């Protein structure tokens, strides 16, 4: 094999290597600057537009999917709410789906809602916070069946 051919092979390989690295960088670049900005974020305020959409027909729940939210510990053990009525409001207020007589729970404390197949709990700016496991949540957090959600002195769980 001639010297020139080997030289060309070497240059070609280095070129492939760099084309790969530069393409990776360009993918990262488009990932940063080419992402879609949702309407709500662009307008600054949360748009109430979603209200107009007709609610999706309730799908058949998957096997093993949780069906209800249950109070397992606290002032009102055994209180439950069906997840079919989601989103569920948790609090001391009369409009709450799970109404708790716990002095450490805010009137509108937290909310459990679905997105796709997953269930989320979201704190609604409560005084004492909402905990998933040992951690105080600051953003909507996924919960599965059996994960303990604590509001005030009450502990709730998703159950099958």
């Amino acid at each position, binding site marked *: 094999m001639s010297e020139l051919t080997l030289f060309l092979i070497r240059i070609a390989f280095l070129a492939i290597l760099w084309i790969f690295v530069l393409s990776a960088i360009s993918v990262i670049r488009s990932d940063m600057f080419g992402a879609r900005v949702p309407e709500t974020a662009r307008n600054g305020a949360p748009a109430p537009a979603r209200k107009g959409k007709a609610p999706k027909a309730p799908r058949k729940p998957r096997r093993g999917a949780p069906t209800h939210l249950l109070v397992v510990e606290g002032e009102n053990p055994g209180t439950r709410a069906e997840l079919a009525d989601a989103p569920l409001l948790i609090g001391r207020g009369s409009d709450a789906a799970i109404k708790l007589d716990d002095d450490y729970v805010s009137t*509108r404390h937290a909310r459990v809602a679905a*997105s796709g197949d*997953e269930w989320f709990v979201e704190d609604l700016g409560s005084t004492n916070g909402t905990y998933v496991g040992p951690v105080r949540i600051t953003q*909507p957090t996924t919960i599965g069946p059996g994960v303990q959600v604590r509001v005030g002195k009450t502990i709730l769980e998703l159950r099958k």
Partner: protein
Amino acid sequence: MSQTGTLMGFVHRRRRGAELFLLVLALAVGIGAYAAVGLGVEGVVPADLVGYGSWLTALIVAAHITVRIVAPYADPVLLPLVAALNGLGLAVIRRLDLTYEALGQSDTFARQQLTWMTLGVILFIVTLVLLRDHRVLQRFTYTAGLLGILLLILPFLPVIGREINGARIWINVAGFSFQPGEVAKVLLVIAFAGYLVLHRDALALAGRRVVFIDLPRGRDLGPILAMFGVSMMILVLQNDLGSSLLFFGLFLTMLYVATERPGWLVVGGLLFGAGALAAYTFVGNVQNRFNFWLHPMDYYDASPGSYQLVEALFGQGWGGLIGRGFGNGFPERVPFAYSDFIVSTIGEELGLTAIMAIILCYGLIVERALRIALISRDGFGKLLAVGLGAIVALQVFVVIGGVTGLIPLTGLTTPFLSYGGSSLVANWVIVALLLRVSDQARRPAPRLDPVDEAGSDSESTQVVKLR
């Protein structure tokens, strides 16, 4: 926090098509390198190129399909970067095998590495399929920590422990040699992340200010002292400077990220300085490493000498900007060219151009890890991503810095490139964990309808008294 779904101001796309495109390029790098090795060393395209290429392609496609199914929002760049580095590493090891074969030495490193890569990809797939939410790992904080420490102690056990090349970091089970420390580092990252996410407030807030630096309280020094002790134990008992540096650096990085306090870096830096000084004074090995680094030429003929490092430096110098080409260098002059010194082999035969591309690849892996940490929604995920990124960063810095003569040489493997089964498998698991965290982080947050605020009502709620 009613509109946290748009925390970063935009929604991430899935980008699986971009990943596929990059994977095709990565395969071109891996298979192209293999073909170039055959052409350069033997003058013909290797006979098993089709078989080898299809095996590599099958592995990568399997990994890609798994990501598509179980982690559709995962980062699109990580897997291709890793695939390219692994493919290039395999080709370079194959190139060394061909020379070793001609010299009559053992020549099955590439074959074994391919087996280990297969195992690594299988574990990658298993991790992604079984672990659907990384927060599950938080439950195993102390289990992971205990298991990690146990794995580090394992090589000292009489029957299974092995000492290879002066470092007692191996175990031998049923004919297989394995470095448990490689698995331990993943477990320790999980343990640190779980521990720090719970105790960060105590570590971050308490303390007193001395001059300009907030120094932590004495009683909070426990974990850092314990980790320092473990690192020193590794250094003194296992005679392994690299791992000791890796574990302590990893802990310090995560502590700093968790608490945002430079005070910890000061404390850690002082501890590390003291430890390094003690090691320099009392451990002969460390003193040798420093001497070889400062005056490599003086110890060329000594035993133990700097022969390996000097040959590596010669090789890289001879390689120059674009290298000698596969088959035209003499990387076999460097002992362990296929493992710790693989970077010097690449420097000799592909030159600075390739070295820069490789370092850039590692840089991108670390950048993606930090990016995942930034956009992750939970503290545990953030710390996990930072820790996993720090492992790669520290390892690359220590190894490439050592081989190029920037810092004293310590034995660590170059992630994904060098020959070494335990390290390769552990690194594939690291990538799987990073992809899992990034899938959670980039998945659009649930769009929960805003609640209409019905009057203020918080007066009647009692505030929980802390303490």
